[in-house]
């Protein structure tokens, strides 16, 4: 197994405020396309992530392209793509960003992704973007858009209302109209008219990406020893930073390589990781989960690319897009699914043949916190072991996390 991060029980730090070097990427993304192994691709991704100035977006702009920041989870990136603009996943500021202004504007008891996203807006790190879309996945994301509209008045920002009534026949027409509100703004940003034809093509591009992402997830589920969680995560994460047309061949090649990997199956317990559907844990934490003796065979990372399997463009692609949200089977914390929570977690456990569940919820992420209680009830009834831990985008000590994860593994292994 390639060792990606050299992690001792505790990771080494750098001085506060210090960030990695600025990375320059060519406008044709050849650095990625020329990577000759998964390891190299993943290492490059790691470097790109350490640079908070969005190197891939800057590269895209070199040829005059426009970019739209998409906050997780259900932002219809296809719409952005259909205008020929680059939809970029906004997944917070990562470990190296110092938060010093966002705290004051937002409040203290809020998740890190909201704070770091605002901090980036306030410190010019989001300058490479022309517009931002925030879905109504929670009150924080929603309110964040309201602050963006004040602090970045020269850029468009939009709050997309996501319906929570999934049974009314009026929901899909409403969501189509809701998408049209977004389209009005995107048209202004792009200086172009919306085209059904283009959207149809975009849907197909995303379908291809989704199919590959799905293949990767199946590999992780069926042969978790072939791809580490960190590799897996970085490959997905890259999908929100590069043009899809670039990510697709990269991912395809990576899959071929990974599927052929010869690797010994360790004696590790199979777990699913529930909760990080929006804010993302640090790489160290992800690695720690597997280091202590787990195989992660199911998770909620990078949901922005994964909330539905496939969208048939159909006669009215906009309606198809709306339908996909309303009918999506994915059951995460930012979607109303009364009375089915228990069944959902159990079927996920069964599908992945997991031996336990690790709830890894972002600190202060209330939707995730509330689901844990309902999930726990179902797991208790079934007698399945679980562990609940909170994480933050930024952390320097992993002692408590390690202690709890080790105990969890020991509690399953020892008799």
């Amino acid at each position: 197994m390639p060792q990606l991060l050299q992690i001792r029980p505790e990771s080494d730090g750098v001085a506060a405020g210090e960030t990695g070097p600025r990375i320059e990427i060519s406008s044709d993304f050849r650095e990625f396309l020329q990577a000759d192994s998964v390891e190299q691709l993943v290492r490059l991704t790691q470097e790109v992530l350490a640079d908070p100035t969005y190197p891939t977006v800057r590269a895209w702009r070199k040829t005059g392209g426009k970019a739209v920041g998409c906050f997780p989870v259900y932002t219809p990136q296809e719409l952005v793509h259909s205008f020929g603009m680059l939809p970029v996943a906004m997944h917070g500021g990562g470990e190296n960003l110092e938060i010093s202004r966002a705290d004051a504007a937002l409040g203290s008891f809020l998740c890190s992704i909201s704070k770091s996203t605002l901090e980036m807006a306030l410190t010019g790190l989001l300058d490479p973007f022309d517009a931002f879309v925030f879905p109504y996945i929670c009150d924080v994301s929603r309110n964040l858009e309201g602050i963006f509209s004040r602090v970045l008045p020269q850029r468009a920002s939009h709050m997309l209302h996501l319906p929570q009534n999934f049974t009314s026949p009026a929901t899909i027409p409403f969501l189509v109209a809701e998408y049209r509100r977004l389209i009005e703004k995107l048209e202004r940003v792009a200086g172009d008219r919306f085209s059904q034809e283009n959207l149809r093509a975009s849907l197909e591009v995303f379908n291809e990406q989704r199919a590959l992402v799905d293949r990767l997830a199946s590999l992780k589920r069926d042969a978790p020893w072939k791809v580490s969680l960190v590799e897996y995560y970085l490959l997905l994460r890259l999908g929100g930073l590069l043009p899809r047309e670039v990510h697709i061949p990269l991912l395809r090649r990576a899959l071929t390589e990974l599927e052929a990997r010869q690797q010994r199956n360790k004696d590790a317990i199979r777990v699913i990781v529930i909760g990080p559907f929006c804010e993302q844990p640090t790489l160290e934490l992800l690695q720690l989960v597997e280091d202590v003796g787990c195989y992660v065979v199911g998770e909620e990372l990078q949901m922005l690319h994964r909330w539905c399997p496939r969208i048939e463009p159909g006669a009215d692609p906009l309606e198809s897009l709306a339908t996909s949200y309303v009918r999506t089977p994915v059951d995460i914390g930012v979607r109303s699914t009364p009375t089915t929570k228990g069944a959902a977690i159990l079927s996920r456990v069964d599908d992945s043949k997991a031996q336990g569940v690790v709830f890894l919820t972002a600190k202060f992420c209330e939707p995730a916190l509330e689901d844990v209680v309902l999930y726990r009830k179902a797991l208790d009834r079934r007698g399945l072991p679980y562990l609940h831990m909170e994480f933050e985008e930024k952390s320097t000590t992993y002692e408590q996390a390690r202690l709890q994860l080790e105990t969890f593994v020991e509690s399953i292994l020892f008799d």
Partner: protein
Amino acid sequence: MITGGLDLGAGTVKGVLLEDGRRILATASLPSRGIPVQAARQVVDELGETANIAPAEVDYLCTTGFGRYMIPERNLQVSDFTSSARGAVFLFPKTHLVVDVGTQASRTMSISETGKVLKFKMNEKCAAGAGRFVERCSKYLQVPLEEMGPKALASQHPKLISSVCAVLAETEIINNVAEGVPLSDILMGVFLSLSQRAYSLMRYVGIQPEVTLVGGLVRDVGMVKALRDTVGMEVNVAPDAYYAAALGSAILGHSRLLKLRETPSDTGG
């Protein structure tokens, strides 16, 4: 067969020597003062002296506690939860719920008959929930640590602490002193606050008798009383429960050693 268990805690290092997984030969403890490795060496020496056993005679060494990775000679390391649970069951075989209150953390776990951890939970941040807080109060209130508990027992109307933060809690205590609240009530308030925090952890994992208290606070009669009152049931305590984690790791070391001897090809953890 002699196995050693070493618990490198945040505040104290504790050690136990165990014969055949059954008989405690020696126990020892020393404050870790930030350098647990040094303290651990001294604890090992002391154990050897007490039991009259040379280091080479120890067949297997298992470590636990936050410094469990710091001892290169160890044969195995286990987490604090796993080891305290084993120790608790050794002392009180009917234990189903273990409460471990140490220097910096309160932990609780529900366990099976064999001492296997079923569910566990530790205190989250923002809690004046463990031994260090008692130590600081002892300093502030100028009551020696050993006298905190006995003095608290005289309390008639314990004064609870509402602040969630240890620092702000200290201010609150000082305010109470200034307002003339009797010392015993303040002290009992400290222990009750600690036990209430432990209680909410216990409720999370599910309360089932018997409950056993382990860790440093087991030495404190005030804490024991407060916990009994808060939980409303009997709580097992024993002097050796102070060493529960070290004891448990020695026990785990023993069973690991047995397994190794059965299957010599396995090189062990």
